[in-house]
Each structure stands twice: as structure tokens, then as C-alpha cells.
């Protein structure tokens, strides 16, 4: 956990409103685990607070991390305007990341990764890690996107996944509907033992409930507006469903067991 001045390597357009940025931050890259995030700040820009982004992928050899971000407001607009060689202040890696449990996987069980919208970003690195941990038993990926314009995610995922099942809101690619609509088929075709999700709360809620009903171990990655990212401002807390504890998403998460977040 440190603040590192990073040099922007690339900052490219993936779709209308999604960009990908590679940043040279060797110390952070050396530590970053799947599911962790960074807080970035353009020191020459007009915004005050840092902005949080999931670590989409890591190249430890080159000392680089990948961010994939949607242009949502002033801060991300400014990010989109930065050019290679410019500097960006990066704080991280923050939070704890996903827990990897292997029970059930020896016997042909699978991990299902689910990403919705820009929530797919941290799932890339997560998929890579799973594929590295068990090359013979790569995760299945359920990709919930708005339309075919967002199929670029597949390019990042294909090497690390057994199969990518796509749902689009408008049916322009894959199954028409929401991610959850693909679940019956996935559960019938695979022996899913673990589910890890990052996406909009409403999407995660439905999927997590389904997982809990089916008794599948499920972790969700939460998001809330953050000011500090390190557990001091208390902007991002919530009350654990089971423990009753006040959790800080930035510090204790962003990944939590589904049971601690959503009612069964």
C-alpha cells in the first residue's frame, strides 16, 4: 500500500465511453492481487479527490497495471484526456481482493466469474489468476453487457476462461437479457462450486441470492463512493448482514462473502 507516481504507457479507446489505460507502477504491480483496486489522481487536473478503479490486470515483469474505465463524469473525462508519458499518481494496491478456495475443484467443479458493465475489469485479473492456479480447470465467465459494442471484454478474457457466456440487454450479442437469465443453462452444463461477481448492485443481488439458494460459495465485489480508499473517512461503510459488523468496503473489502451483503 503506497503512493506511486506512474507513467502512462497507453490510454486507448475500447468503446464509446470505455477506455483502457496501462500505467507503469512497478511497486504497486509487484503487490497487486486480483480484486484489489487503486485510487488515482491527476495532479495537474481540476478534480480534488482521487478516483477508485479496479485493477483489471497486472504485468509484474514489466511493472505495469491495466485499468479499464468508463467515462462517467469530470474525473474520468480528465483521465481520458491524458496521453502516454504523462504522470498519474496511483495509490494502492487497496483492499483485500478475492479469496481463492479450491474445494470442489479437484472433482471437476468449476469457478464461475461474473462481470457486469465496467465491473468486468477486476474479473480479468481474477480470471488470469484462476487460469494460472489451475490451468486445466479454467473458470467459466458470464459477461453481462449492454450491447455488442462492449464485446471487447472477450479479447481480454478468452485466454483465461473455459467459455464466455454473453448476455446483452438488447440481444445484439449472446443471450438477450440480464446475466441472471443465463444462469439456468450454466448451472445445468457446469458443476459450479464457486462464484465471484463484480457488477451493479442490483445484478449482484439477484445472482448472489441464486448462489446462496443453490449453496454455492459466492463472493461479491462492492462499490460505493469513496473519499479516502484506506478506511479513514467512513464514506463507504455498511453493516454486515450476518456479523452485524460495520465493514469498510475500501479496507475490509471490496470483496465480501455474499451472505454478509445480501439477505438470503
Amino acid at each position, binding site marked *: 500500500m503506497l503512493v506511486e507516481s506512474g507513467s502512462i504507457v497507453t490510454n486507448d479507446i475500447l468503446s464509446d465511453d470505455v477506455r483502457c489505460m496501462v500505467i507503469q507502477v512497478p511497486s504497486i504491480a509487484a503487490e497487486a492481487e486480483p480484486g484489489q483496486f487503486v485510487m488515482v489522481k491527476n495532479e495537474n487536473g481540476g*478534480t480534488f479527490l482521487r478516483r477508485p478503479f479496479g485493477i483489471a490486470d497486472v504485468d509484474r515483469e514489466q511493472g505495469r497495471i491495466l485499468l479499464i474505465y468508463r467515462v462517467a463524469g469530470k*474525473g474520468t473525462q480528465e483521465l481520458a484526456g491524458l496521453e502516454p508519458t504523462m504522470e498519474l499518481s496511483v495509490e494502492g494496491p487497496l483492499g483485500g481482493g478475492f479469496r481463492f478456495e479450491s474445494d470442489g475443484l479437484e472433482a471437476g467443479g468449476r469457478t464461475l466469474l461474473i462481470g457486469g458493465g465496467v465491473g468486468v475489469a477486476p474479473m480479468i485479473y481474477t480470471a488470469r489468476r484462476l487460469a494460472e492456479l489451475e490451468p486445466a480447470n479454467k473458470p467459466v465467465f458470464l459477461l453481462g453487457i449492454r450491447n455488442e459494442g462492449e464485446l471487447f471484454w472477450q479479447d481480454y478474457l478468452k485466454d483465461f476462461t473455459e467459455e464466455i457466456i454473453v448476455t446483452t440487454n438488447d440481444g445484439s450479442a449472446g443471450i438477450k437479457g440480464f446475466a441472471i437469465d443465463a444462469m439456468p443453462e450454466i448451472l445445468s452444463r457446469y458443476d459450479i462450486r464457486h462464484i465471484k461477481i463484480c457488477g451493479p448492485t442490483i445484478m449482484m443481488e439477484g445472482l448472489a441470492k441464486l448462489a446462496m439458494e443453490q449453496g454455492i460459495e459466492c463472493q461479491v465485489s462492492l462499490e460505493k463512493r469513496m473519499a479516502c480508499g484506506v478506511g479513514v*473517512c467512513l464514506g463507504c461503510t455498511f*453493516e454486515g448482514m450476518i456479523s452485524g459488523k460495520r465493514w469498510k468496503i475500501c479496507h475490509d473489502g471490496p470483496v465480501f462473502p455474499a451472505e454478509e451483503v445480501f439477505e438470503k
Partner: protein
Amino acid sequence: MNFERLATDFAGIKMKTPVMGASGTFGFGIEYKDFLNLGDVGAIISKGLTPLPRSGNNGVRVAETPGGMLNCIGLENPGIDVFLRDILPKVRQEAPDTAFIANFSAGTVEDYGMMAAKLDVDGVDGVEVNISCPNVKEGGIVFGTDPRAAAAVTEAVKKNTKKPVIVKLSPNVTDITVMAKAVEEAGADAIALINTLTGMVIDIRTRRPLLGNITGGLSGPAVKPIAVRMVWQVAQAVKIPILGLGGITCGEDAVEFLLAGASAVAVGAENFVHPDAVVRVAEDIDAYLEAVGLKHVSELVGQVRI
């Protein structure tokens, strides 16, 4: 950093530098230990404590605004008892030599007194009384905008502790010097200002207030000119020392507060942006002293030439 030049006795609280971490923006200090040397921090001011645990407000709690931010945390904290049992010992272990100031508030004058008594223990070097939290419905605002209520709280606290008592004022008043004089007369050992200004953002897509609590407290660089003005006004109105804060991001900002009349300063929202800010600001002040040839930071206090 030349600690000889920076060492400060603030109302009896001995600090290595005149720069503190502001309440609610510095946790209990220990959260930042990866980013700075806690031993180089002037003082840690704790997140605001209350008689009972509080879970704070629902909904969005922090939002960026031009040059600053709004928050409506709602004084989430584990309560005074958990603090004394679990947190204070940890702080004293991780930062044995750093001054620690406990910030607290309550809903009644009696509870303010009770909190002060509970905090009158080893390991606490002083207390900061929050009478100005603008986003907690059952407390704060009443005390912070009424000189008599503020005086009553101050007296109750003073009666119950031997620690130096800093009363933290709300800027949401017509005349800050009236409040300052009231708490000075009531026995405050020092005054801290400013707390946050009440603000509001409306999300034009949902047509709802962005913050869960409708309004929140504005802080950050945007409020600095207001804070400097108030410190300057109060410095002329009272004799007790002033802890200046509001929008400090660098040593130059801090020097402005010192010149205006603050004997020490605190860094608030800037900690979120640069987690080493408290130490960096102290280093910057030191560099300024060096550059202008002053021997001690106290030589700057109140030295603005009108």
C-alpha cells in the same frame, strides 16, 4: 525536518510539529502508518466519538464538489467504550510518542461532561469538543450556533477533565467572534476552527439530493479563504491559542493560517488525497522557516501585517 524549529506546545499539548491530522479525516492515526511515520505527526485527532456506537447516515456519504468535498458520515464511530478498550491501546502502541487528541460530541450537556470524564485517562493528551457537526440531527448544530449552549458545553467538559480542552467551532454563524469569546469565557483552553460549512448537491438525473442526509459538510481547499478569515477574526478577539484548519493542502496554506493567528494547524480532507499530507505540510513549513530565516514556527503566529 528540523524538529527544534517546529516543536509546539499547543495549550499544554506537546507536539513535535504544529501539524495535526483533523478529526474524521485521519482515522485514529494508525490507519495511515503505511504512508507516513506516525512519530512525525504533530498530533492525531481522533474521529469524533459519541457516548454510544453510531452507524451514521444511510446513502451516499461523500461527494466531490468544486475544489472540495461534502460529507455526511453522520459521526459513525464505535462509541467511547469500545474506543477506550480496543482502540486507544493500539494507538498508544503504534504511536507512543505522538500527541493524541480525542474528538467527541454528544446530544446533551450532561453527556458532554460524561464523555470528558471518560476521556480523562492516560494516553489521551487533550480533547477536542465538536459542537458544530452539521449533519447529525440530534446534536451538534444547536450547541455550535448558540453562544450560551456552546459555553454550557465548554463548562461541562472543563469540569470533568484535567486535559487541555479545545473547543471546535462551526463556521455556520453570523459572527464567529461571538462564539469564540463565549467558549473562551467558559474556560476553553483553545479553539479549533473551522468545522465544515453546510452544503447540498442535487443529482439532476434522479432529482434527489445526492447525499443520503440531504445536506452535508463542505470542506477542502474551497473553504480555505473563509477559514483563514475566521482564524484572523478570532485571533483578534480571544487570548487562547487557535488551531486553524479548513482546506490546508500544503505548507504555504499552513503558513497562511499561522500568520492569521493560529498556533497550530490541522490537515483534513487533503489526507484523503495525499495520505502523507500531515508530515509533508510540516516539512514544507520547516522549509519556509529555513528560507525566510526564522528560528521557530511560533515567530509566524499572528504576524500578518495589516
